[in-house]
């Protein structure tokens, strides 16, 4: 096997080779670090690279395997961690200038879990400042570039994480999702990303900007790998009261089980109201593909989504409560986009906020009612594919929309994802097509609380027929020695 070929494997394919000692964790890590050196000067996907630590972890992982202490499918696998998850002794910037020297004294819960599982951490990944935004155009650490076309955004806020997975630098990365920050970059970078049910994964050690709607979720190249990653981090954490003592099923055990009896809901309103025609076509083809697999479809109504903008006010107030003291001391050290996105929340009253929470409740009820009729709901993840990093406006179905100004990008790209953060239900994004220019399009499946297993099962079956199956960004794919610009 040629060294770089190992980067083409999924975790599910590579893990047995590591367990059987056919491939060594040190070899995999060295090759991943070579890919990192080749790729990341263009994608700017890391804030802190941990080459030496990663090699030490890989050597330890190898020694453990040699003495018969194999810890499971993540053992010896190189992964990335978004830089808003604390890492003991390793700086954690949250993409902010203010925290550029912050070195936490402990690991986040999910970092503890993956370390225990034997993963090798390549570095801390670039993100939208404070994880508040959809582009990953970071004013302090530079914009993250989409590996499918370097002039384009990768989506955000977990842009570095998605770019690394898509360009085969990491086999998986952790993102966080308070408005779509796992699913949007998954969609725009052509990878798989899940926002689990609120309460499924501990948020301990997530330097969050929103208590009530933040989630940690894995980004991976395949659905099965995503299930493997969630398996490792799901479950109750006694130190995080937001987690619930709901048993964690074996996500991969039944992933290839039958789906013919399932019903899917197609929203009558909202999710297809503002959509790029190429995205619309790809998602509708995916729906037909799911129907051809035997899944019955039914239109569902979510009438209160008309009031969904109220949910953004909740997020903005949440963000401001967390940032208020820091802004008073360090206002000049914030990027304008993030600062001015939060400030309007100062002028919302307590009564307004209480009303917004009631709107949240009636929207939750819409979804709960719909999900009594169907097993999951299908939508486009993002209404548009990736657009240029320096874009001031985008055109959807011939109509121009300004994306200049605080929060404007999120209001377009995040239109279909931020709802999920406020209803708490699980939602996965997986690739379902490429535009004529070769840019990925994402399909979102939203399920019932704690039923990530159903989403994985449907996504796993769809992945087999997805037109994007096996496609990587041409420029950055391992094994491509031609350093030629991707024309996508």
């Amino acid at each position: 096997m040629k060294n770089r070929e190992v980067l083409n494997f999924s975790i599910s394919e590579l893990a047995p080779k590591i367990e059987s000692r056919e491939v060594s964790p040190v070899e995999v890590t060295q090759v991943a670090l070579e890919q990192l050196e080749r790729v990341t000067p263009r994608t700017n996907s890391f804030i802190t690279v941990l080459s030496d630590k990663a090699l030490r972890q890989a050597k330890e992982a190898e020694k453990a395997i040699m003495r018969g202490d194999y810890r499971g499918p993540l053992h010896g696998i190189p992964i990335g961690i978004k830089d808003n998850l604390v890492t003991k002794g390793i700086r954690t910037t949250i993409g902010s200038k203010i925290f550029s020297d912050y070195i936490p004294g402990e690991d986040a819960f999910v970092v503890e879990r993956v370390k225990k599982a034997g993963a090798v951490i390549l570095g801390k990944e670039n993100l939208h400042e404070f994880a508040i935004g959809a582009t990953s155009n970071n004013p302090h650490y530079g914009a993250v570039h989409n590996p499918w076309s370097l002039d384009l955004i990768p989506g955000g806020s977990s842009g570095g994480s998605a770019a690394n997975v898509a360009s085969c630098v990491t086999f998986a990365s952790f993102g966080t999702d308070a408005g779509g920050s796992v699913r949007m970059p998954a969609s725009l970078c052509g990878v798989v990303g899940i926002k689990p049910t609120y309460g499924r994964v501990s948020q301990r050690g997530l330097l969050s900007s929103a208590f009530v709607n933040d989630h940690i979720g894995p980004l991976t190249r395949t659905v099965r790998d995503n299930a493997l990653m969630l398996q490792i981090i799901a479950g109750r954490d006694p130190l995080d009261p937001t987690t619930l003592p709901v048993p964690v099923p074996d996500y991969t055990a039944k992933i290839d089980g039958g789906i013919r009896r399932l019903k899917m809901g197609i929203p009558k309103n909202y999710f297809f109201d503002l959509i790029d025609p190429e995205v619309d076509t790809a998602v509708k083809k995916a729906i037909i593909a799911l129907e051809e697999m035997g899944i019955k479809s039914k239109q569902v109504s979510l009438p209160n989504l008309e009031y969904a903008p109220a949910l953004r006010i909740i997020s903005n107030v949440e963000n401001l409560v967390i940032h208020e003291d820091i802004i008073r001391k360090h206002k000049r050290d914030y990027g304008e986009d993030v600062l001015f996105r939060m400030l309007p929340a100062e002028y919302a009253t307590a009564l307004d906020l209480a009303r917004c929470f009631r709107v949240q409740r009636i929207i939750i009820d819409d979804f709960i009612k719909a999900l009594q009729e169907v097993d999951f709901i299908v939508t486009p993840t993002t209404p548009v594919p990736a657009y240029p990093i320096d874009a001031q406006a985008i055109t959807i179905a011939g109509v121009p929309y300004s994306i200049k100004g605080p929060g404007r990008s999120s209001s377009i790209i995040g239109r279909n994802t931020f709802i999920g953060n406020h209803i708490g239900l699980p939602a996965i994004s997986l690739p379902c097509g490429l535009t004529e220019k070769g840019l990925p399009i994402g399909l979102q499946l939203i399920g019932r609380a704690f039923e990530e297993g159903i989403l994985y099962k449907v996504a796993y079956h769809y992945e087999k027929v997805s037109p994007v199956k096996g496609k990587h960004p041409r420029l950055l794919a391992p094994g491509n020695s031609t350093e030629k610009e991707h024309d996508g």
Partner: protein
Amino acid sequence: MSVSKETLRAMTQDFGLIELSDEELEEVLPDVEFQVAILKKIRALALSRVPPARQLRPGEDGEIK
């Protein structure tokens, strides 16, 4: 809906909010107006009988409780 800079300045002063320069108030004003428009729309909703928010959990029969 129109909101004046003077209103925002007075609120900032009276409620001890984060101090903003004239330019910053100018920048924030359109988004405050947008927010006010959203809030006006939801004030028209009958929300007094909405049951309290609750955590999501699966029931024994798989139904969401």
